[in-house]
């Protein structure tokens, strides 16, 4: 029996009234890849942050290589041979790769010898693990895939034996992700222990030796990957049988509502994000946009929602929309019959410090129904809120509660209620169920389908392929600002879509 590389015993951690981790125990054998899977908010990242000394556990013990270890800060974690690659990279953007690697691991007070030494060691590491990056490039000059390598190199440079990766593929294309997994296997061959945190079943099945499942702050199971199946893991994650298919009748597409021709979007940094796409959404259908995050889907939604300018032609019910300047903002879009459930409800869809009733007016605060004389008719607004809260089963049913005090699912219900109840011709929906509990997911999916059945057009953007499959009547795949192809859900599968998402064009594109 080998001594485990990492052993956590009874870890508990609360943030105020929220119990993020509850009595978690886990044991990872050296030289293996161990997956931790769970929904958003299940407590995976908190657990790993405790292991990396970012937070102090309220209760519990950490054992590294058979020794009980205290990890009060990151310094101690590094000294114990732990390295961590965060979901959001912790790099100084205007420093070079070399400077980033040296930062915090310098030898002595002078910089020059540290940099020279690091340059030499980096070369050795690069060759050993096939992790090539140009040490003299600045971070903001290299792509995200390379930036992630820098993070891995940072850990290796600090002699990490245990490497934690938190949702490492969120920003990667499938081919970049495959490359990453090759690197991880290489690291395992060299005897490193790897913990991979993800909410994607595919990655667990492909890359790990053992897997632990977390649900609502608790560890529900640890199994050998070879002895389990995605269905079993999915059940363990959500706690009951998952409804992979939403009940819905076949779509009855009508006339085109939204017509997009040669749309281009250039972002603030001058990078072209959407590179000339064409797309039509008809009345009574849901068109799903699949793709890895960061391939232009967000920008597409934002242009349609009036949040950023674009070039090209967009017609709604045959009328062209202004894409920049006057008449192209969110107010104009709403007036034209477009409702928008944004991708990030906390930063966009809601004002977290506003009462629920104030949020129900958000974006529609200039609606004459909420106006009395010079002022806003707050009483009418509150009555309207009460109605929506009841209809959408928002809990607790309290219009005076501030948005931040609702759970993720109930926050999203407020947004969805606000937008769907406007009875729009076109509904834009971005990541409708991100960080939402399973009960609310079902409810929200049903509402979206019901709106479709009333003959409205719906454009859905989601990075969750499962969601795309279960909701869409037609699927378009975006990669690098292009639409790689359109498919009907019953005529395609995850594998084909995965290829399209990686930029490998199919015969139809």
């Amino acid at each position, binding site marked *: 029996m080998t001594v485990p590389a990492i052993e956590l015993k009874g870890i508990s951690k609360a943030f105020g*009234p929220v119990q993020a981790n509850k009595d978690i125990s886990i044991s990872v054998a050296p030289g293996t890849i161990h997956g931790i899977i769970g929904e958003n908010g299940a407590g995976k990242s908190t657990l790993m942050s405790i292991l990396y000394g970012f937070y102090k556990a309220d209760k519990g013990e950490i054992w590294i290589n058979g020794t009980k270890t205290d990890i009060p800060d990151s310094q101690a974690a590094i000294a114990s041979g732990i390295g961590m690659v965060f979901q959001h990279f912790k790099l100084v953007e205007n420093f070079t790769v070399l400077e980033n690697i040296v930062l915090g691991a310098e030898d002595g007070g002078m910089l020059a010898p540290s940099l020279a030494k690091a340059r030499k060691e980096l070369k050795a590491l690069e060759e050993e693990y096939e992790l090539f990056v140009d040490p003299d490039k600045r971070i903001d000059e290299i792509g995200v895939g390379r930036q992630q390598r820098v993070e891995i190199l940072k850990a290796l440079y600090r002699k990490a034996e245990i490497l934690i990766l938190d949702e490492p593929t969120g920003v990667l294309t499938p081919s970049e992700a495959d490359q990453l997994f090759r690197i991880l296997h290489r690291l395992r061959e060299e005897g490193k222990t790897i913990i991979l945190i993800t909410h994607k079943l595919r990655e667990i099945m492909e890359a790990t030796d053992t897997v632990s499942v977390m649900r609502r702050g608790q560890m529900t199971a640890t199994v050998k990957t070879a002895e389990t199946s995605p269905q079993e893991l999915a059940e363990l994650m959500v706690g009951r049988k998952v409804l992979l298919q939403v009940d819905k009748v076949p779509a009855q597409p009508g006339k085109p509502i939204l017509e997009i021709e040669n749309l281009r979007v250039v972002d603030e940094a001058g990078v072209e994000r959407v590179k000339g796409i064409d797309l039509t959404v008809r009345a009574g259908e849901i068109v799903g946009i699949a793709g890895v995050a960061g391939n232009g889907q967000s920008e597409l939604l934002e242009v349609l929602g009036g949040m950023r300018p674009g070039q090209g032609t967009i017609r709604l019910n045959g009328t062209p929309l202004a894409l920049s300047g006057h008449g192209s903002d969110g*107010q104009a879009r709403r007036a034209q019959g477009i409702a928008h459930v*944004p991708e990030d409800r906390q930063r966009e869809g809601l*004002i977290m410090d506003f009462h629920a009733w104030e949020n129900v*007016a958000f*974006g529609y605060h200039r609606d004459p129904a909420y106006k009395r004389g*010079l*002022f*806003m008719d707050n009483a009418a607004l509150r009555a309207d809120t009460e109605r929506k809260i009841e209809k959408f089963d928002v809990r607790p049913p309290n219009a005076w509660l501030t948005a931040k005090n609702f759970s993720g699912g109930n926050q999203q219900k407020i947004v969805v209620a606000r937008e769907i109840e406007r009875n729009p011709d076109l509904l834009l929906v971005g990541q409708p169920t991100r960080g939402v509990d399973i009960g609310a997911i079902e409810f929200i999916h049903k509402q979206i389908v019901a709106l479709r059945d009333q003959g409205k057009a719906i454009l859905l953007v989601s990075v969750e392929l499962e969601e795309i499959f279960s909701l869409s009547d037609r699927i378009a795949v975006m990669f690098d600002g292009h639409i790689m192809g359109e498919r009907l859900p019953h005529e395609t599968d995850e594998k084909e879509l995965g290829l399209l998402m990686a930029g490998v064009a199919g015969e139809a594109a």
Partner: protein
Amino acid sequence: MEKMPKWADVVLIPLISLILAAILSTLVILAIGENPVEAVNLMVTGALGSTYGWGYTLYYATNFMFTGLAVAVAFHARLFNIGGEGQAMLGGLGVAVACLYIPWPHWSIALLAACAASMLFGAAWAAIPAYLQAKRGSHIVITTIMFNFIAAAFLNYMLVNVMRPQGSQDPATARFPEAVHLPTFQSMFSTAENAVFRGAPANISFFVALLACVVVWALIWRTRLGYEIRAYGHSETGAVYAGISPVRITIIAMLISGALAGLMAINNVMGEAERLVLNATEGAGFIGIAVALMGRSHPFGVFLAAILFGFLYQGGAELALWTSIPRELIVVIQALVILFTGALDNMVRIPLEKLFLGLRKGAE
């Protein structure tokens, strides 16, 4: 779940901060060898013990209401306007221009014109920093600080080289004509047998300030523009999603803020000095920061905080008159209030939140 009840946030935290500032001020008075009890006594009698004292207290409070509201409105849009001082200076210039160069038949019309002119000049002075923040991302705190200095130099130039009457050595404008002198509290409230507020500068502007409090309250909490200002202040990305233009709100909020700061000039320039002098604002623009912080950016809070600071200013002046404690004691108190209610807010807030959380757990 809320971390603590709303009343604690609105009442308890400013109160504790105020008490901390008071304790430290007491220590300062002790340290310079004076008797704090006696000092407080002197301040209370001097500022509140007579209609004369009240007349000064309310005069100062009027200034601070305007500048406090100015800072508060900008705060709602998450803009820190340190430029109240410069905007109030320019407001003074506006009042001087309105009062000196147009022969008004009656003070009431002149007051309306002076209000308009002071607001226009104050808003204009806020417009450039606002535009630069909105369109070019220039940090508004730095630009408004710079504009305070530029305003001082500009006013100095105007008073020395342009508006100074011939033959006068004093860098000030001529006296305003009799017709535009505002009614003071003395003329408004005295009866034949009982003269009150005698010689005190409080004037009708106080009621304009009260009106401004009400208008600002309605604007922020009851209008669509106020809704947009608050929404933008809480979340810029959210504002963009809702179709609220950040550029528009930044500029409008700063224009309102500058106009309110400028409006102060009807009190100190038109109501009190009756001419424009150098340094007419006497730092009132900066006190607005303390007033807005203490008043939690709510017009009613600003009203109370302005009265408190009016009391401190008048009390401080009395103190300087009768003891060897200089007026600067008030500057120290003002600094402590800003420190505790602004920068050290978390020092008071975090233990209090823990306390309430503990109480609730205990109750369950």
